[in-house]
């Protein structure tokens, strides 16, 4: 069953077409990655899904969505626990404390409860942002290059952590990245976005749970090559 359905989506900025009649669908609980180069329209696509930019066409998406950004968007003036509690409107304080505790544990940040985001590392801030969306019980997570500013080691750790979370909560995820390897490792399906439209789709059939070792398998390398070529072919044509 489609959890997100997009038909003929176009986004136009003042003198610039950011997306051209894009079609897209995601099943409930599916992990879809979108790869593309800078300026291909990846971020605009997520913004349109979230309703942040005006668009033409049809977008069907649950109301309760969470979004993560490359620059974390953790509120600097709120502590880690206050960030997690931000979306808990309507819950009494006892329920809030229970949810905060649960998500601090999930984010492996129990000892950072009263710290401010500026006191955390990039990976920790990104975990706070995800914990905040999960505490809010977002059905869909839109992730805009969330690991783009992390070092390679932290990025690998965060990818594994995200897969564990996704396995546990089975949220629908749309993950935007320019890193082909990251997309293949994480997703069920990888879509290639170029020149403001989808130009390729790749089903990823690696079994789950996945671990780092699949990145060194021949199948992984073949996929990586194909996606890379899809990106570049389109640029040449």
């Amino acid at each position, binding site marked *: 069953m489609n959890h997100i359905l997009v038909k003929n989506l176009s986004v136009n900025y003042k003198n610039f077409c950011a997306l051209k009649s894009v079609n897209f669908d995601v099943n409930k609980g599916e992990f879809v990655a979108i790869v593309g180069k800078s300026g291909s329209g990846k971020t605009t696509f997520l913004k349109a899904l*979230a309703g*942040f930019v005006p668009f033409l066409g049809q977008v069907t998406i649950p109301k309760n*969505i*969470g*979004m993560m*950004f490359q*620059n974390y*968007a953790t*509120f*600097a*003036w*709120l502590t880690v626990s206050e960030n997690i509690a*931000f*979306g808990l*409107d309507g819950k009494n304080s006892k329920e809030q404390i229970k949810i905060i505790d649960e998500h601090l544990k999930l984010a492996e940040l129990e000892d950072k409860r009263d710290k*401010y985001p*500026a*006191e955390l590392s990039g990976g920790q801030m990104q975990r706070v*942002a995800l914990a*905040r*969306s999960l505490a*809010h019980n*977002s059905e869909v997570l839109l992730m805009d290059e969330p690991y783009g500013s992390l070092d390679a080691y932290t990025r690998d750790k965060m990818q594994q952590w995200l897969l564990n979370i996704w396995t546990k909560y089975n949220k629908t995820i749309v993950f935007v990245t320019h890193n082909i390897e990251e997309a293949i490792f994480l997703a069920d399906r990888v879509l290639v976005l170029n020149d403001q439209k989808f130009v390729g789709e790749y089903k990823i059939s690696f079994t789950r749970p996945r671990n780092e070792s699949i990145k060194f398998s021949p199948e992984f390398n073949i996929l990586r090559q194909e996606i890379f070529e899809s990106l570049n072919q389109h640029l040449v044509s």
Partner: protein
Amino acid sequence: MISHSGFVSITLFPPPSKVFASLWEMIISKTIFLDLRDSLWRLILGLFLGSAFGVIIGLFTGRNKIFENIFLPIIQIFRPLPPVAIIPLVIIWFGIDDGAKIFSIAFAVFFPVWLNTHIGVGRIAQEFLWSAKLLTASSIKIFHKIVFPSAIPFIIAGIRTGIAVAFVMVFVSELSGASGGLGYRISISSLTYRIDEMIAALIVLGALGALTDQLFVFATNKIFPWIKFSIK
């Protein structure tokens, strides 16, 4: 040394010993405390009123286009005015009592606080607003928990500038039509050629300005500890 060398007049350039003797005399006679009380009361009230109006109007003009279109042209007309230029006018309006002095200080403080608040709330990262909108439907909560706190570093910078301006204005406004205050003391000492007393009062005024600024920084760091963490 210069004062005692005979090259300059000891009356015009009194030695530090004479200045501190005058200061001590002012402490013993309690005149300095009475002057401090008068100046501080005007300063605090003027600073509070100017800051409060600056923050409130800045929040509205920074976030609301209608308010911006209404208030911005008016504020921009008054902003280039030297605050001391309005003193004769406010004396006519409010008389020579504290009202005129407090209004002049508040007027001068308003502009830096307003401008910083206006810029601060207008420069909030769009990602903060998007994240907040996805997490809550309450625009009051977004304003109270996201928009306002994000502008706090700017507001603090504006108030710090406002404190410096307020000290200028408290001094200038007490030069005429006052019967007490540090500005009055300096003015009276000038008329009676008590340069030592003038310098002593100036030292107190300067020390008070520095102390107020440092107390403000200390208090804001205590109230908003995340600011010092953010400025790494």
